[in-house]
């Protein structure tokens, strides 16, 4: 569990925020003027965990901003994907998930790998149909040939049906 941190990369019309650590009661999201940026990209790769108070703080921060800017979420870890699926409204309607991590596991090697799925490349969502275009064997993932997706496909990818 580590302290929440945010780094800002700004150009004229767009803003990128890199978040890391834990989103909980101690989180302090950066102050962003609503409507100043056309697109706000959140890089969530470093997020380790989120709790119930963190969910409230996230919603209070992102909802007013998402009314005036387009949100793009990148490198979403499993802890965030879990909330996308469990908490209806966690992803504002104006937010788009560009990429997220999918866990794979090899029983024989007892090895875990997290693969970044880019929406439109490794996975596509056409209305209610999700198509996986990633083959761990062909990719020689982890150097073993029995890597399998370690989540229930129909449930883990559910958020894509409403967030692409």
């Amino acid at each position: 569990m580590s302290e929440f941190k945010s780094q800002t990369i700004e150009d004229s019309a767009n803003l990128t925020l890199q978040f890391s650590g834990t989103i909980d009661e101690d989180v302090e999201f950066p102050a962003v003027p609503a409507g100043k940026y056309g697109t706000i990209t959140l890089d969530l790769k470093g997020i380790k965990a989120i709790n119930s108070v963190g969910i409230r703080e996230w919603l209070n921060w992102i909802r007013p901003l998402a009314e005036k800017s387009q949100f793009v979420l990148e490198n979403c870890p499993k802890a965030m994907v879990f909330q996308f699926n469990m908490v209806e409204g966690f992803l504002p309607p104006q937010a788009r998930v560009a990429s997220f991590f999918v866990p794979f596991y090899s029983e024989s090697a007892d090895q875990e790998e997290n693969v970044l799925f880019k929406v439109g490349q490794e996975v596509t969502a056409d209305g209610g149909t999700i198509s996986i275009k990633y083959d761990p064997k062909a990719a020689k993932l982890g150097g073993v040939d029995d890597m399998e997706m370690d989540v229930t496909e129909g449930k883990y990818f559910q958020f894509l049906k409403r967030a692409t």
Partner: protein
Amino acid sequence: MKKAKVVDFSRGEIPPPDGKGKIGVVEAMNPSDVVRLAHVSNFSHIVQKDGMAFENELKTAEAMTENVMQFLKDPLSVIFGPQPDDQPRANMYVVNPVTEKKTSTLDKFEEFLKSIKGARRIREQAILVADELYTNAMKIGHPHEKMSTTQFAREGTVEFFAEHDGSRLVLGCRDSFGELGFSQVLTRITQCFDKGVVHSINNGDGGAGIGSFMVFNTCISYYCGVDKGRATVVCVALPLGVADTDLASLPKNIHLVAA
């Protein structure tokens, strides 16, 4: 010692007017109805016939009712039975003053999880549950301030414990305050099922009011004991080796006992 009465709803048995101290056995009941039934019937336990480790859950329910103090003192031995001498179950135990930050305990728990085969699939959820349980216990010790300050904190302790038997992981917290109200917890969980999480969030000071739902939604068994003014124990069981995304749909049991 009170003997627990079992009422098998799945066989059409008629529930008595007061369910306090009684065990309700149900089958294929969805999670929201389990909470509603516990709330409305006042049954101390709702146990699912088709749930994981049904026989064990029934025994745990009986043991919790028959000896509440033993559950409050040593919940893991009531849930799993006594530690075997030859192959003791792996566990962890931490006791902190309520002013201690949760970070180091949660870090230890994360390390403990790494040592458990089959826990990788529920890692994020287990950490979430541990965080919620620990934060809730701490909140009671900080009634008038943010938990990052300690000026007005009450004196008390938070104990965190976890143990597994290869198929189930049980983790929980005991605080030294004994202030948890069952009705309030059940109301909050039901509200999240009925209105959705986002519409159930408390935007005032303190907790978000959705933590109990998140814990219940993630677990297969929710165990709670209160000795008013002295101790609260809240712990849950998570299945090992089950895909994380299936947790919400697994049959759930609930156990609520007061000294």
